[in-house]
């Protein structure tokens, strides 16, 4: 019998095309992918719609396997989990994890949200990034450059192309350059928390004011501010490199989790605390500001990142007051009322600003 008219693909055609598509994708996933390969693949994809649809279909399936990480997240044993473990009785950690994931809407964390929603988004969001952002093909020759900024009062989490993410505090700005050998972020203004994707071959460097904060797969925040630079490490270890001074080697300090480094004109002061406590300092992510024996001038600067109605220090006496506590970042009014109640402070409420003076 004939295989039909010439317009019918020969039997087994789909199978062969699928095999080719799989070969392409597997090579693309590998380490030896070159520009020439990309051109050849583009040509292959253009050659027939059958190629394209087969490729899309397999690519989509492979992408889906990125979510195995969510399953793997609860797995603590050695090696590949045994088959069928996924159906274990609920109550174990993995099952809870699955439920948590299932309960979450399939969105990336919103760039902007407030209060409880934000907390939820942060808790689930970081997981969500991994689940839904797709996969990381490495395009090594390429330099990805991007710039992100937030307005006063805005907190935004930005997924970076390498799989890391940056959460920007209000009134902050970063510039990101991802290249083959290095991931470089310039912190131009404000503060950002970085959750760094592991990639030993490409150090993640946050540069600000001549200092380099270098990390490989960790979480930390960097802030540039009036008194100087602050680095908070909540996971892993980062290296803080001072600006090069003449011929001398750049002095550097290793900051383990729980470190808070304050860099001022006078030098670097490293404080160690429990990582959980250090994490409090990053409370702004959840809309909360935390102060520990902080000069009021600094606290006010912090509030001003989140409120258009700015707080103004009226005199040196007020500036020097030291305060502590946790406050909602968007509730400057409440903060001022507390100050008036507990400190010798008088607030002058004007249209666009609140001036704080000694009483």
């Amino acid at each position: 019998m004939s295989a039909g008219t010439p317009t019918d693909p020969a039997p087994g055609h789909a199978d062969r095309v699928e095999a080719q598509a799989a070969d392409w994708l597997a090579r693309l996933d590998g380490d030896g992918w070159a520009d020439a390969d990309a051109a050849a693949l583009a040509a292959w994809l253009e050659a027939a719609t059958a190629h394209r649809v087969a490729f899309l279909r397999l690519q989509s399936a492979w992408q889906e396997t990125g979510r195995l990480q969510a399953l793997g997240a609860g797995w603590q044993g050695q090696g590949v989990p045994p088959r069928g473990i996924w159906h274990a009785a609920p109550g174990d950690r993995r099952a809870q994890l699955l439920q948590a994931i299932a309960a979450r809407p399939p969105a990336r964390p919103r760039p902007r949200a407030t209060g409880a929603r934000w907390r939820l988004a942060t808790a689930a969001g970081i997981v969500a990034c991994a689940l839904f952002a797709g996969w990381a093909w490495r395009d090594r020759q390429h330099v990805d450059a991007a710039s992100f900024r937030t307005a006063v009062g805005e907190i935004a989490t930005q997924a970076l192309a390498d799989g890391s993410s940056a959460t920007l505090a209000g009134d902050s700005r970063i510039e990101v350059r991802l290249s083959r050998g290095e991931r470089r972020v310039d912190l131009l203004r404000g503060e950002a928390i970085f959750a760094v994707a592991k990639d030993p071959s490409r150090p993640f460097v946050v540069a600000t004011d001549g200092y380099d904060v270098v990390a490989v797969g960790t979480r930390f925040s960097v802030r540039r501010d009036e008194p100087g630079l602050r680095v908070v490490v909540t996971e892993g270890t980062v290296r803080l490199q001072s600006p090069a001074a003449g011929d001398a080697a750049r002095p550097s300090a290793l900051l383990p989790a729980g470190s808070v480094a304050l860099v001022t004109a006078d030098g670097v002061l490293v404080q160690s605390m429990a990582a959980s406590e250090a994490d409090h300092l990053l409370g702004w992510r959840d809309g909360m500001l935390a102060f520990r024996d902080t000069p009021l001038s600094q606290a006010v600067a912090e509030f001003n990142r989140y409120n258009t109605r700015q707080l103004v220090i009226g005199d040196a006496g007020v500036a020097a007051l030291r305060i502590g506590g946790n406050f909602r970042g968007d509730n400057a009014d409440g903060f001022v009322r507390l100050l008036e109640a507990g400190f010798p402070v008088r607030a002058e409420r004007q249209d666009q600003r609140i001036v704080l003076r000694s009483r």
Partner: protein
Amino acid sequence: MYAVPMLDERRREFPRPRGRRIRYGARMPDALDRWFLEQVLVHEDALTRYLLRHWPARDEVPDLRQELYVRVYEAAARAVPAQPKSFLFASARHLMTDRLRRSRVVSIEPMGDFEPSSVLVDDVSPERWSGGRQALLRLADAFDRLPDRCREVVWLRRVEDLSQRDVAMRLGISEKTVEKHIAKGMRMLAAHLFGGDEAARAGGGHEDLDDVRRHAD
């Protein structure tokens, strides 16, 4: 034996977000591709079951499905159908009709049997794209069906995030072999995930239709 490091706390808390877009050609990840994935491919298992039910030679179904995808994709390139699912099944019906006519195979089934209304009612919601627990378990099942070595390779590559080269080193096999396992894994996973394969296996009982197909000569 080889040692596999445990997933660390960090990974558990911050599964690596992946945002890198793949670069393989100027035209690639465009709206049409996305449309195809989200509106057409999600119906693969219903579609495959439909084809198996109505097409007498089951080994031809993958070819049929591919041709159908090509037709639908090309049609959508001209004008995106308002109702993708109905369009898909209507196209399936037309394709089968065309093929039967052209290959001069006589079907004793009236053409009306291709009516896809029942398929359209028993809805396969595209919820696997929405990240439900069901979808994860489906993925786990698909993963569990891979042969041992292939499963191991996929795990190391996708969960432990080792490069193909590192996977090869870990397992003491060549990079080429790793690549082959990945290619194979992809195909098997696609078959399970999109359900076509499932349907093929569960679709037994249509063998008795084989005698329905007779050559005109």
